[in-house]
């Protein structure tokens, strides 16, 4: 007897249909599985057999042949266990023929017949939906993840025995109710807030501008000044994710296996902090299976590189493509995949090896040559892509202990959202922030008054700017004007924008 069960596989973020064909026929008892499965797929034999026996169902003492079609593309992981088990039950007439025909079946089996959650269910369900399938049989552990997709009828179970009874009509079960996506849930709280950051007016302002316009930012300052704390606060002032953004992020996190099954969807903007020993494949994505890297895990959120000069140079240079395009291309010997990687880069560094150069409160003991060698670990092309650079100095005791409570993240976020609304009104759909403006848009939206033109001209000459640096200044000036609610860029806006580029000269000349 032959049974065909519908399942799905992933190639990057895209899914494709896999037909699990199970043939049970006379012959010596054996279990053959073909169709380019990896070790986890091959090992399904033991899980499926034990799970069927321990669910008090009959495992046939006959020859079982399983084919995962299309036979020429690779299948990975344990997600076919349930489809194979149902196929065996169907081929031995323990579940009625065609009772399973409407469903896409995905899940891993435990030896005791329990169903375990698998990674990547959200992208799998989304692509199955695009192929016109809306009914699913899934492990209970994946229920939340699937419940956020409108139009999906996901029937979730904890045991193989229940699935068998359900297909036999002996167990009634409703599909999981679709959840409405909301960012104002109780678990959408951050454990940091800008209210905890004392002093640091300049850095706070710079971070606000960076978030408002989607600019990248570099903080330079001595150790312990509060760079890391402020970086952690950045997601708290970013606008809430839309449903589409959340789905994009959840897809990537689901594949990477870092999705919280209790939540099922990522509601907070990601904040990724890869350690400075990170390798290029870990940052960009790669490995034998071309997994997403940190830049993709930070998609729609923040990538924080603490102590930026400590990173390997070739690791940092790899950031150039995602910074420019918002996607990263992962090429492996067998496949090339594109993962989204549209993140805001927040970087921090000490100004010199000892960390105290430029501090008002502490002495630096580094020679100029040492300082130069340290800062020049960041290449010019990379620095050019960072729109704002800001110095962060330590805070005095008085201010730290007795200073007034600072403005909270919620208040800053309101201003950011207003500035973003102006940008949306200006650019329409597609482009959302000023940092992504093309040259044509730059010309159209960043025209300068004669006196602003003079300010920029003087700065260009004095700071020895590159052409790219000057366009970056214009974009930042546009964001500052948006924050001020001004349609035109005025002299104070451009002056402030120039100031965030002037550290180039102090450290890198």
């Amino acid at each position: 007897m032959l049974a065909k069960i519908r399942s799905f596989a992933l190639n990057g973020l895209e899914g494709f249909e896999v037909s699990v064909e199970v043939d049970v026929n006379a012959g010596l008892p054996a279990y053959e599985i073909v169709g380019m499965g990896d070790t986890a797929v091959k090992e399904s034999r033991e899980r499926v057999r034990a799970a069927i026996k321990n669910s008090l169902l009959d495992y046939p003492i006959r020859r079982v042949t399983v084919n995962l079609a299309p036979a020429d593309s690779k299948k990975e992981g344990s997600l076919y266990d349930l489809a194979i088990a149902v196929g065996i039950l169907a081929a031995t007439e323990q579940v009625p023929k065609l009772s399973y025909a409407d469903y896409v079946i995905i899940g891993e089996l435990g030896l005791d017949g329990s169903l375990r959650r698998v990674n990547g269910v959200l992208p799998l369900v989304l692509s199955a939906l695009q192929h016109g399938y809306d009914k699913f049989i899934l492990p209970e552990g994946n229920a939340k993840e699937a419940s956020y997709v409108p139009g999906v009828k996901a029937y979730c179970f904890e045991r193989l025995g229940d699935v068998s009874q359900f297909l036999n009509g002996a167990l009634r079960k409703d599909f999981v109710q679709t959840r409405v996506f909301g960012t104002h849930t109780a678990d959408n709280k951050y454990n940091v807030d800008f209210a905890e950051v004392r002093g640091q007016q300049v850095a706070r302002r710079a971070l606000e501008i960076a978030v408002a316009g989607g600019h990248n930012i570099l903080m330079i300052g001595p150790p312990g000044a509060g760079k890391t704390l402020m970086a952690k606060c950045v997601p708290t002032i970013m606008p809430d994710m839309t449903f589409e953004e959340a789905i994009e992020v959840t897809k990537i996190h689901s594949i990477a296996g870092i999705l919280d099954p209790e939540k099922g969807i990522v509601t907070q903007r990601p904040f990724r902090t890869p350690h400075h020993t990170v390798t290029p494949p870990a940052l960009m994505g790669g490995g034998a299976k071309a997994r997403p890297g940190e830049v993709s895990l930070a998609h729609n959120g923040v990538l924080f590189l603490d102590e930026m000069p400590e990173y390997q140079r070739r690791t940092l240079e790899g950031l150039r493509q995602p910074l420019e395009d918002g996607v990263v291309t992962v090429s492996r010997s067998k496949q090339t995949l594109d993962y989204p990687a549209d993140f805001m880069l927040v970087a921090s560094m000490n100004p010199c090896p000892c960390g105290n150069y430029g501090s008002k409160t502490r002495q630096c003991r580094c020679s100029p040559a040492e300082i130069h060698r340290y800062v020049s670990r960041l290449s010019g092309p990379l620095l050019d892509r960072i729109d704002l650079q800001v110095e962060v100095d330590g805070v005095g005791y008085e201010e730290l202990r007795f200073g007034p409570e600072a403005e909270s993240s919620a208040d800053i976020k309101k201003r950011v959202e207003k500035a973003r609304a102006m940008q949306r009104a200006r650019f329409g759909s597609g482009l959302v922030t000023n940092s992504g403006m093309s040259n044509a848009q730059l010309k159209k939206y960043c025209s300068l008054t004669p006196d602003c033109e003079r300010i920029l001209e003087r700065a260009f000459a004095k700071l020895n700017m590159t052409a790219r640096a000057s366009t970056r200044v214009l974009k930042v000036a546009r964001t500052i004007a948006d924050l001020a609610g001004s349609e035109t860029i005025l002299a104070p806006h451009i002056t402030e924008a120039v100031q965030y580029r002037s550290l180039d000269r102090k450290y890198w000349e």
Partner: protein
Amino acid sequence: MNNRKTSIEGENLAVQVLEGEGYKILERNFRTRAGEIDIVAKDGRIYVFVEVRARANADFGHPGETVTPAKMYKLAGAAKQWLAAHGISNKPCRFDVVTVLNGRAQLIKGAFDMGDAARGAYAVHRRRG
């Protein structure tokens, strides 16, 4: 509890079953260095090499499950010798297995082929060195 008895009774039962199916028994317990064939028979014009697997109970698994690739490889080697000894070549051949459990026999026609048997080569030669 007597494994030898179970085994002989199983083979006798298997012969009955095969004859009931119209097989002509040619030889029983053909022994070579490579291995032993329980029954050599002819089903129409096809030569059939039959392995009999008898078990008193299924406590240690179904008898059919005990025909491992290594066993298949040994049977195939013995079958080749039988064919050579009788000067038979280019004639259709087949491997059947008869399982006997609790006095009930079941015939599996074409239980395996040379491809299945080849997978046992490694296990056999590793053991023999």
